[in-house]
C-alpha cells in the first residue's frame, strides 16, 4: 500500500523541480530581451506613502521630485540652479520680486495643462495645508500673482538668497489644482515619468510619459526596489536581478564589485556626518572640553574604519557642492597630546559622558572608533544605542538627554537650522544669527562671504565635530550610463539614465 504512494510523491517532486528549472531558464532569457528599455534600481529608504506634503523624510522626494513632480527651478550635479518648469525668470531691482515665465505646452499626467494658477495654488498650499515641517522654507513668500497663464510673480517679504535654491527642493513642487485629492496614493505631476504601480514597502514602477514637455527619457520603464538589507541588494545586483544599487549602505561590500562588469561611483551628498556635542549643558558646555574632542579624533581613521574610506573629510557643516564651501579640515588637527592637556585643563579627566547612538550602520561603526579614540585622551563614553528614528528623536533630539551623539544631517544647506539656539545641539547662535540675517538679504557675494564666515565661526567654536561627508556610493552594471554621481538635491533623477 505504502510503496506506490511514496513513489508517486517522489515523481511529483521530480516533476516540480524540473518545472522550476525550466522557469528559471525562461525567466533569465526574457530578462535579457527586456533590458534595454527598462532598469531596476535598489534603494534603502522606502516611501510609506506618496505624499511628501504631510510626511517628512528623504524617501518620498527621492522617488518623486524631478521624476514625477517638477519645480520652477532645479539644481544640477554641480549645485547650480537651472531652469525647470520656468523657462527663465527676472528678479526685481530690490530683489524682492521674482517673475517666472513658464514653459509652454506642459501637461500634467492627468492631461490638464500647466498654468500659472497651478503654481499659485501649489505654493499657497505649502503655507496653508502642508504638514511637512520643511514648509517653513516658503515662509518668506509674501504674495503670488498671476498676470497671465504663463507668468507667475512671486513677492518676498525680504530679499532672500536661499529661497530660490529652496524652490528646487520639494516645497517647489507644482501640483495640478485638481490633482491633490489623494496625494498619499496618487502622484499627478508634470515630470517625465508617471507612477505605474506603487507596491508599498516593495517597489515603485515608473513609466515614461509620451506627452512630456521636455526631452524624452532613454529608458522608458524604471523600477525602484526597496531593500532593507544591503547584502540582499548586492546579491540581487550580482545575480543580475537589478541593475543599480543607488546608495550602498555597507561600503565594505563595494570591494566585491571591482571588476569590468560593474562601476563604482562615489560622489558627494548633502549629508554631513556630525559628531554632535551638547553645547547647552553637561560636560561639553565647556568649550575646552569640546576642543579636546576636536583634537582627540583622527577623522581619517574614523572614515577608513567606519565607512571603508568612502566619503570626504570636510571640517565644517558645508558640502563641497555648496557655493560657500571652504576647506576647514585644517582648523582642528589630530593631536592626542594636546587633547589630553585640554582634558586636564577642563578638569574632566576620566569622566564618563552619555553617547547616544542611533541604531544605523554608520553611526554604530563610528561610535566604536570614536569612543576608543576618546578613551585614549581620558574621556569615557557611555554608549547607549537608540532605535532610529523614534527613540533617538524622542530622547536625544527632543528631550536633549545626551552629551554626544552622531548623525548624518542630510538636508541640503542645513547649517543654520542645525546650529541654531533651539536645535538639539544647543549652539549659542548670538554671533551667527546676525551674520545670517545680513547674508540672506544681501547680494549674492555678500551671501557667500557671510555664509563662509558662519561656517568658520561654528567650526572654530568647536560646536561639533564634522567627521566626514557621507558618500553617494553607487554600484551599477558597467553598461548603465547617466547615473547622477553627486546627490545635491533631494531627488534621484532617472530621466538621464540610459544603457550603453
Amino acid at each position, binding site marked *: 500500500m505504502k510503496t506506490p504512494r511514496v513513489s508517486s510523491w517522489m515523481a511529483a517532486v521530480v516533476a516540480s523541480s524540473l518545472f522550476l528549472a525550466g522557469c528559471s531558464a525562461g525567466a533569465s532569457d526574457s530578462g535579457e530581451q527586456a533590458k534595454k528599455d527598462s532598469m531596476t534600481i535598489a534603494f534603502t529608504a522606502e516611501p*510609506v506613502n506618496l505624499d511628501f506634503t504631510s510626511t517628512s523624510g528623504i524617501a518620498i522626494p527621492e522617488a518623486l521630485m524631478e521624476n514625477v513632480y517638477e519645480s520652477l527651478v532645479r539644481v544640477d550635479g554641480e549645485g547650480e540652479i537651472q531652469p525647470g518648469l520656468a523657462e527663465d525668470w527676472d528678479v526685481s531691482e530690490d530683489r524682492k520680486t521674482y517673475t517666472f515665465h513658464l514653459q509652454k505646452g506642459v501637461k500634467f499626467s492627468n492631461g490638464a495643462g500647466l498654468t500659472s494658477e497651478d503654481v499659485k495654488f501649489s505654493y499657497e498650499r505649502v503655507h496653508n495645508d502642508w504638514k511637512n*515641517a520643511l514648509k517653513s522654507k516658503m515662509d518668506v513668500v509674501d504674495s503670488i500673482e498671476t498676470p497671465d497663464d504663463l507668468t507667475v510673480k512671486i513677492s518676498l517679504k525680504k530679499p532672500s538668497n536661499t529661497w530660490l535654491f529652496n524652490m528646487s527642493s520639494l516645497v517647489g513642487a507644482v501640483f495640478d489644482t485638481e490633482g491633490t485629492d489623494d496625494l498619499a496614493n496618487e502622484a499627478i505631476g508634470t515630470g517625465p515619468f508617471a507612477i505605474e504601480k506603487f507596491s508599498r514597502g516593495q517597489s515603485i514602477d515608473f513609466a515614461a510619459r509620451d506627452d512630456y514637455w521636455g526631452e524624452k527619457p532613454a529608458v522608458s520603464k524604471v523600477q525602484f526596489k526597496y531593500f532593507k538589507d544591503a547584502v540582499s541588494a548586492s546579491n540581487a545586483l550580482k545575480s543580475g536581478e537589478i541593475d543599480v544599487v543607488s546608495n550602498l549602505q555597507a561600503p565594505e561590500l563595494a570591494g566585491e564589485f571591482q571588476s569590468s562588469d560593474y562601476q563604482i561611483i562615489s560622489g558627494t551628498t548633502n549629508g554631513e556626518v556630525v559628531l554632535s556635542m551638547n553645547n547647552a549643558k553637561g560636560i561639553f558646555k565647556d568649550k575646552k572640553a569640546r576642543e579636546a574632542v576636536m583634537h582627540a579624533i583622527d577623522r581619517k581613521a574614523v572614515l577608513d574604519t567606519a565607512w571603508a574610506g568612502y566619503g570626504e573629510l570636510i571640517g565644517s557643516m558645508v558640502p563641497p557642492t555648496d557655493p560657500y564651501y571652504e576647506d576647514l579640515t585644517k582648523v582642528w588637527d589630530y593631536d592626542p597630546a594636546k587633547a589630553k592637556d585640554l582634558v586636564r585643563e577642563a578638569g574632566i579627566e576620566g569622566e564618563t559622558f552619555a553617547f547616544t547612538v542611533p541604531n544605523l550602520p554608520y553611526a554604530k561603526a563610528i561610535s566604536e572608533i570614536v569612543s576608543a579614540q576618546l578613551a585614549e585622551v581620558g574621556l569615557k563614553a557611555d554608549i547607549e544605542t537608540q532605535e532610529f528614528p523614534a527613540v533617538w528623536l*524622542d530622547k536625544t*533630539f527632543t528631550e536633549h538627554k545626551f552629551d554626544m551623539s552622531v548623525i548624518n544631517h542630510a538636508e541640503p544647506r542645513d547649517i543654520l537650522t542645525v546650529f541654531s539656539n533651539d536645535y538639539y545641539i544647543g549652539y549659542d547662535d548670538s554671533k551667527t544669527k546676525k551674520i545670517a540675517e545680513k547674508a540672506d538679504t544681501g547680494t549674492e557675494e555678500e551671501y557667500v562671504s557671510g555664509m563662509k564666515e558662519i561656517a568658520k565661526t561654528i567650526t572654530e567654536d568647536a560646536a561639533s565635530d564634522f567627521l566626514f561627508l557621507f558618500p553617494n556610493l553607487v554600484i551599477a552594471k558597467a553598461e548603465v550610463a547617466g547615473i547622477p554621481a553627486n546627490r545635491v538635491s533631494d531627488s534621484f533623477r532617472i530621466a538621464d539614465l540610459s544603457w550603453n
Partner: protein
Amino acid sequence: MITYVANRAIQFVLALIVASVVVFALMSILPGNAAQVALGTNATPDAVAALEAQYGLDQPPVIRYFNWVVGMLSGDFGTSYVTGAAITPVIVGSVQVTAILVIAAIILAIVIAVPLGTFAALEQRNWIGVTISALSQIGIAVPNFLAAIILVIIFSLTLGWFPSQGWMAPVEGFGGFLIRLVLPVVSLALVQAAILTRYVRSAVLDVMREDYIRTARAKGLTRTKALFVHGLRNAAIPVITVAGVQLATLLVGAVIIEQIFVIPGIGSELVRAVANRDLVTVQGIVMVLVFLVLIINLIVDVLYPIVDPRIRNAS
C-alpha cells in the same frame, strides 16, 4: 468532546482579551512620539501638538482602547498615522504572504522530518540512524538566516537557478511565484525539519517500546509494519504539538527571512511599523499575530481528541 472544545474556545477568547489590553498598554508606554516622527527633525512643538490632536493622541487611553477594540471587531484596524492609509488591507495582504510562506515551510518540514525521523528511529543502532541524528543536530544549530545566505550563494549567485530575492503574487504569474518561493521556504523548512526530525525519532522510539507493538510483533508483523499500522498514529500526538508550536514560531520568526528575501510579509510590515512608530499598525499586527497563534493552539487542542480516542473519551 463538545465541552472540551467549548472550554478551549472560552480560554481562547479570554486570552485574546488579555492580550489586547497588554498590547495596548505596551504601545502606550513605548518611548517615541508618533507625531514627532511623522513631522521629522524640523518640526516645531506647535506643529507636533496639532498633529497629536488630529491623531486623537490627546484623548484618554481608556477611550482610545475601546475605540480600537470596537473598530477591530468590525474588521477595521484604523488608519495609520504614518501612511495615512487604512490598515486592514495592509494586514490582510501581508498575512496572506506570510501564511503561504509559513504553511509551505511547515509542510516541507513535515515531509522531510516524518520519514527521516521514523527511519532514524528504526535504524537507530546503525550508521544511517546515527548520520540522520547528527545531521539534524547540525540543522538545529544553523540559524535560518545563515541557511538562507548559504542557499542564496549556492543556488542563486553560483548556479543561477533561483532569484536571490523578491516576491510575486500567484495571480501575477504562477511560475514566477513558485520560483521565488523556493529558497525562502527551504531556508525556513530546513531548521524546522531538523527539530521535528528529532521529535519524530523520539516519539517513534517511545512508541516502539509500547506493549501493543510487542503484541503486534508477536502476531507476526515486521517492525516496520507494526509501526505503520499501530504506531504512527500514537506517535502523532507529540509531533502535532511540536509542529503547532513551530508553525506559531514561524509566523513571527519568518521576519528575518522576509527581510533577506525582500518579501512583503507580516514580519516586514511589523518591523517597518515599529521603526516608524506607526503604533496603530503595530497594535493591529500584534493582535493579528496573537490571534493566529491562539487559533493554531486551538486547532492543535481540537486535533488531539480526533487523533487520540483516549483523550476524546476522557473528556
